[in-house]
């Protein structure tokens, strides 16, 4: 299945801003984080199609998946 993965802040360093990935059915959000060598401890927010999700959430064909480190402001 095809999923668009988007990275933000320092997760982009040495990786990418946005990439379409071909993933096996049943791939979880957490598995993509692990494949990118991102430490799960550094992850602040995961969103699929603009909704928050968890590491365990299973991705679906056509999803837009965003991975953010722990960030804040205001």
């Amino acid at each position: 299945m095809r999923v668009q993965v988007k990275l933000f802040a320092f997760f982009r360093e040495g990786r990418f801003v946005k990439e379409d990935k071909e993933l096996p059915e049943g791939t979880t959000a957490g598995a993509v984080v692990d494949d990118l060598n991102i430490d799960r401890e550094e992850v602040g927010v995961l969103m699929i199609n603009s909704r928050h999700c968890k590491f365990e959430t299973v991705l679906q064909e056509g999803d837009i998946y965003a991975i953010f480190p722990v960030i804040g402001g205001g």
Partner: protein
Amino acid sequence: MADKIFRVNMTDLSTSIEDVPADWAGHGGRGLTSTIVAAEVPPTCHPLGPNNKLIFAPGLLSGTAAANSGRISAGAKSPLTGTIKEANSGGTSAQQLAKLGCKALIIEGQPKDDDWYSLSLTPEGVTINKEEELIGKGNFDVVESVEKRFTDKIGILSIGQAGEMQMSAANISVKDPDSHVRSLGRGGLGAVMGSKKIKFIALDAQGGKVDIADPDAFKAANKTFAKALVDHPVSQALGTYGTNVLVNIINEAGGLPTRNFTKGQFEGHEQISGETMHDLIVERGGKPKHACHQGCVIQCSQIYNDLKGKYKTSGIEYESIWAMGADCTVDNLDQIAEMDHLLDDIGIDTIETAVAFGVAMEGGVLDFGDSNEMIRIMKDEIAQGTPLGRVIGNGAANVGRTYGVTRVPVVKNQAIPAYDPRAIKGIGITYATSTQGADHTMGYTIATEILGVGGSADPLSKEGQVELSRNLQIATAAIDSTGMCLFIAFAALDDGTCLPALVDMLNARFGIGLTADDVTNLGMSILKTEHAFNTAAGFTNLDDRLPEFFETEPIPPHNAVWDFTGEEIDTFWNF
């Protein structure tokens, strides 16, 4: 040296130094400005008349070595909202006031003639001087000239042309450590200062120091506190990308109000994002990390240079960039930085003014995305006080009334900032119930709804949002009294050592025995004091509502509407 109240009467040009009344002694910052406004300002007075008072107060820990304690509060009845108002800023003035032994500066009355004045504070007291040279000047000229008259070590509070013309979006500028300015931004307090005919206030502590009752305990608590701040990952991201790191995540969540609140995502988000800004700053030899006051260990400010590598602006915030950017559909950071600089110089709130531009764009005054015309209007209309300049300078609601626009994003006449309350519902409760009109900083539910700090809450669900906003508004009122930057809250929400260390510092500073419960109670009592002032000024629960269009216009991508009932909102005050 015991702290004193410095009082200035602009009607008869007299000054006095008074002992601190017993029931003000435990207050600082916002708690003190609100307590004094509630005690001394008639709630029904005209905000620009002689009966309003302008109060400045450093926080309880300002002027000490406590990390991030350099915030100043200013309070009055707001000419924008008609409610009580506290605006909060970094810069050097909180530390100067505290070291002067000034617990609060109260400015009351109003000159009967057309003369302008300045104030000069030293540990001996206040002098009032006539001012001619700087009238009509912007804040950067004022800071440069006043430093030449005194020294570059002094603190300066000043107004630009907008404050002189008493525009209800006018702010008060606070000199920062680099002789640039920060802003006591919201609610038009610059207009109140202008109504008192005061162009600037020079603060010279002359080497004074703040007394600490138990220096060893203070030092130990500050070490723990600073470590909690430095170690928190949000602090680290803030130092790298500034608050503007939020553009992309709020856009991704579908809550970035775009094109005068008609969409929740902005096509140009990447061009104005914190990531892009960081790269531009580094490329042009600016500084991504910069402190707005001495002792800040987070350093979310930055030095932004123009294309030629020359200084353009600093301390540009997410909400300002959102307002001039997504809300007006401007996707060029250099244009936004230019506008930020201009608005700082004119002395007018970036959020209110840019949201007013968004409404003006909808009203056909200028085209969406036309940043050149925005810049022209700022220079040729707002700074000059032309009729159009005054229409915009009096805020978003004023523009809506003038041009017959019904999609006007304000609560109690104050512009709603950078988070759409349909897609991020908790912040809508804060906008509706805040004692000061729409203001994200009053109860920053975004931390929990979007950023996953201090737990989590579904931003599209109503569940738990009233309680979340209430708890954060109570905590914020307390933090705003300490002189602490609100960004300590990220560490405080997640790190169990942070708040106890803050309480320990308060106890060591004053030789008292506060508990965490006392701090919560302080926050509650401040909110109730402010709410009582507003009630006496004529506000009711029906003012705690969002504009109608939020209920009737779904916002993409979630196509969410604002669906809290009035009864649900009103439960906010059940404490």
